[in-house]
């Protein structure tokens, strides 16, 4: 998945496991940027009685690099605390939860959000801000949308925040992708390893359709994020582009205390999870380095550039789909580095390759979600982002509806290589390869307002028929 369970160690620590990062100029408030970091993957809505929540012992952060060094100039930290009203019941709630301060809600979570500026002051933007409950069902959370709406908190100065459960917005056919890269629409073309009875081609299946996720969403003025507080319309101004990523950290020591019958943590935080571009650690970094990658800062990503330059998926496509990707196969065999992918993922796309666009941040190779804030939201967005001619979409930041699986598959298949080598002709299939899933395969629609991801599925009626 985008980054759900993408590395061996973090797959065992879901509350610290980042799943997706989104960064986009807010379509309904274009003087702001919305930053979203999702955690706690693959939530089955009925997963009680201990429903999903953030980790009180995890430090969640959203980082902004605004000078191209791969290091954060601005950072937002989120720390959570859980209050239990009545420890003498097993119930999450003892009656309907109709307000965030409902006495029926037994296990509530609150958070503090802090803004840190490199070399500057630390500012607490909000304390003891409430998360909404999980969406349990019509008796427990009869008007969930109202609860979620009440949990959107105004931080002042055109800033707002939301932390809590929402519907998973990342759509993907996991079953097909992980069954030896066999997108259902292309199944008839797969070499199938000589196995006689294998599925025929068909439409994709959205594996995340019924699932929820925990979202940290922050909307702030563009000037809060850019170098020198720059705001403007000159796309080529180097101050226009910011780099975004999220991390989760845990304290270095955790003690299982047999006298207190609980655990406690102490010491400095160590980064255990990191995410910017979708699928970077998941399908580009090899298994033996995934856990290490999760502990590293983006400014050291040059050490992973070789995996971008010759990505494993690009090698697999011609092998798994014989005769379908001959030009990609030739490119692979030429030994040339994938300069297109190195730019898209590690430095940003320089001026001159795509008319009216750049999100280049300099020579430092760093996996960042690069957003050119001078590009205004699209009136007619394409889920294929830049590949669909929509300059406001991935990989210029990422909106909740962008089809990052298709975009990245097509880029790796060679579509974007023509940007850096005009003599290269992408295979016909390269611009069509897809897992066959789109936002039409979602059960819960996106919101057209903050926090943009939909109301989570409730446990009573999920899975739906």
């Amino acid at each position: 998945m985008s980054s759900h369970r993408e590395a061996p160690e973090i797959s065992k620590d879901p509350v610290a496991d980042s799943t997706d990062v989104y960064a986009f100029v807010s379509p309904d408030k274009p003087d702001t940027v919305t930053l979203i970091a999702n955690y706690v993957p693959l939530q089955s809505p009925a997963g009680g009685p201990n429903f999903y929540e953030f980790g009180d012992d995890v430090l969640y952060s959203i980082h902004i690099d605004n000078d191209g060094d791969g290091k954060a100039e601005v950072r937002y930290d989120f720390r959570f605390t859980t209050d239990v009203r009545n420890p003498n019941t097993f119930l999450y709630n003892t009656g309907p939860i109709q307000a965030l301060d409902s006495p029926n809600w037994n296990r509530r979570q609150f958070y503090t959000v802090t803004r840190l500026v490199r070399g500057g002051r630390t500012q607490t933007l909000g304390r003891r801000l409430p998360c909404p409950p999980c969406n349990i069902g019509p008796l427990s959370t009869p008007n969930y949308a109202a609860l979620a709406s009440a949990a959107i908190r105004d931080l002042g100065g055109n800033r707002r925040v939301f932390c809590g459960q929402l519907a998973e917005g990342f759509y993907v056919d996991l079953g097909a992708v992980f069954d030896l890269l066999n997108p259902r629409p292309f199944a008839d073309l797969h070499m199938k390893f000589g196995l006689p009875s294998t599925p025929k081609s068909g439409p994709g299946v959205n594996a995340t359709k019924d699932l929820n996720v925990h979202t940290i969403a922050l909307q702030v003025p563009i000037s809060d994020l850019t170098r020198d507080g720059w705001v403007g319309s000159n796309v080529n101004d180097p101050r226009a582009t910011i780099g975004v990523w999220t991390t989760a950290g845990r304290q270095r020591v955790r003690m299982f205390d047999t006298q207190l019958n609980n655990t406690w943590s102490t010491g400095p935080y160590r980064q255990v999870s990191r995410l910017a571009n979708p699928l970077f650690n998941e399908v580009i970094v090899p298994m033996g380095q995934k856990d290490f990658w999760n502990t590293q800062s983006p400014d050291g990503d040059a050490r992973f550039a070789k995996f971008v330059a010759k990505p494993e998926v690009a090698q697999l496509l011609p092998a798994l789909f014989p005769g379908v990707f001959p030009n990609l196969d030739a490119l692979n065999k030429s030994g040339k580095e994938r300069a297109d992918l190195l730019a898209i993922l590690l430095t940003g796309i320089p001026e001159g390759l795509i008319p009216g666009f750049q999100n280049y941040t300099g020579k430092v190779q760093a996996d960042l979600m690069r957003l050119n804030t001078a590009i205004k939201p699209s009136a007619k967005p394409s889920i294929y982002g830049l590949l669909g001619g929509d300059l406001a979409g991935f990989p210029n930041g990422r909106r909740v509806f962008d089809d990052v699986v298709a975009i990245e598959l097509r880029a790796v298949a060679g579509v974007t290589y023509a940007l850096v080598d005009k003599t290269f002709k992408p295979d016909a299939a390269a611009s069509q390869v897809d897992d066959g899933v789109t936002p039409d395969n979602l059960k819960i629609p996106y919101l057209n307002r903050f926090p943009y991801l939909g109301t989570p599925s409730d446990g009573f009626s999920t899975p739906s028929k």
Partner: protein
Amino acid sequence: MADAQHLRGISRRKAILTGAGLVAAGAVAGATGGLVTTRLAEGGSLGAPDGNPKVPVMVHLRDARAGEFDVFFGNTKVTVVDTNFAAKLVKAADAADSDSSSAEAPSDSK
């Protein structure tokens, strides 16, 4: 409760001598953390953060030969060197190791 009983579960003296095992070191710290905390406080170099005596302090014997301890508290780590104390811990662990015929078994030290 004797240190040897606390240290039941530490598998090999070698692990401590090399300072390679966090699990082993954690068990040592669990047994003797109070002592180390007292010594640090008496030394005046490191009181409990915010003056709160309840803040947990965790000590990891990272390098037994050099007597180097990592001391974790709050959001901080400091390094303390005490070769004599390290030697005492190694000795206690060695005693525990020889005292137990089932050191690998999960143990509740209560």
